[in-house]
């Protein structure tokens, strides 16, 4: 018998040699059509919009840390020119007020950061200022977490986190930008 039986032919192995080619094709397709996930950023919560002008609230001046940024990306912190590199330390000192100075905030939960920029301020500068403020709060919360729970803020559970957050709430108020130096 020269011819193989039907059964014998069925048991032949599938030729898998082309499998690599198919996989390569898919791989190259995905390589070309995709981008690496890199979406990270500073997560913020915007305040609700109201058409009425906001109520003018009389605040104790010592509790307000005002930051102004002009169209030339220059900083004015509490009425004096300042450098972005000192901002984080100054904000931390203001919020915590460890020496109980009479010109810094009464307590961390009364501290208000007020941020105002111009329409001509660059987005890079704005985000840098925002980043420093966030950084100041993150560092303070982390220190508080270590002091009361002995671990970093990241490792706390939800209840512990909210306890820290009530101790050191982040109150940031953004004013409508001024309009002096917007590009045409």
């Amino acid at each position, binding site marked *: 018998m020269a011819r193989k039986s039907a059964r014998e032919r069925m048991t032949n192995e599938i030729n898998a*040699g082309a499998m690599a080619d198919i996989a390569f094709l898919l791989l190259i397709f995905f390589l070309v059509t995709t981008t690496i996930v890199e979406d990270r950023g500073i997560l913020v919560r915007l*305040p609700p919009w109201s058409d009425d002008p906001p109520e003018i609230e009389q605040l104790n001046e010592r509790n307000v840390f005002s930051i102004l940024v002009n169209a030339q990306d220059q900083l004015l912190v509490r009425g004096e020119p300042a450098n972005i590199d000192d901002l984080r330390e100054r904000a931390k000192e203001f919020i915590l007020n460890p020496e109980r100075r009479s010109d810094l905030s009464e307590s961390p939960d009364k501290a208000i950061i007020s941020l105002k920029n111009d329409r001509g301020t*660059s987005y890079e500068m704005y985000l840098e200022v925002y980043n420093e403020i*966030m950084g100041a709060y993150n560092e303070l919360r982390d220190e508080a977490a270590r002091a009361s729970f002995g671990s970093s803020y990241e490792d706390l559970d939800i209840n512990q986190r909210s306890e820290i957050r009530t101790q050191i709430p982040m109150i940031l108020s953004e004013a409508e930008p001024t309009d002096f130096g917007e590009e045409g």
Partner: protein
Amino acid sequence: MSRFRKKRGKASPAIQTASLPDIIFMLLFFFMVVTVLRDAELIVEVRTPEATELSSLERKSLVNYIYIGRPFERHQHLYGTSPRIQMGDAIRGLEHIPLFIGEHRLRVPENQIPAITTSLRVDKTVTMGIVSDVKTELRKAEQYKVNYSARPRID
């Protein structure tokens, strides 16, 4: 003579390629997992600023993107050179923002609507005027969760 024959007998056979598909598949799955499909072609140039206090966005389906930047050179004859807003794959005006947010809300289960995040991918050279306008529109559209997209700073 026998020496020669011996050598030939030792010559290695063809390399085994049977596991090659497995290796390639592994690579394939790796790339499938770590990547996302490009959802829109950028018309504006966006180089995000650098920051340190970053958090990453989870749940791709709950994120929508608004790009702000200057149009690329090949689009400048259409859109000019000053910063523009891109939503989806087109340049749109500020007035389109409520519609854009509303469209996304329709695609999401109702209980997850408050978790929708708008990721602002803004070029670092853009001035705050246009960004403030976008923020105001987002607040009017009751879209409060916003992410300022940034790259990690490498010191």
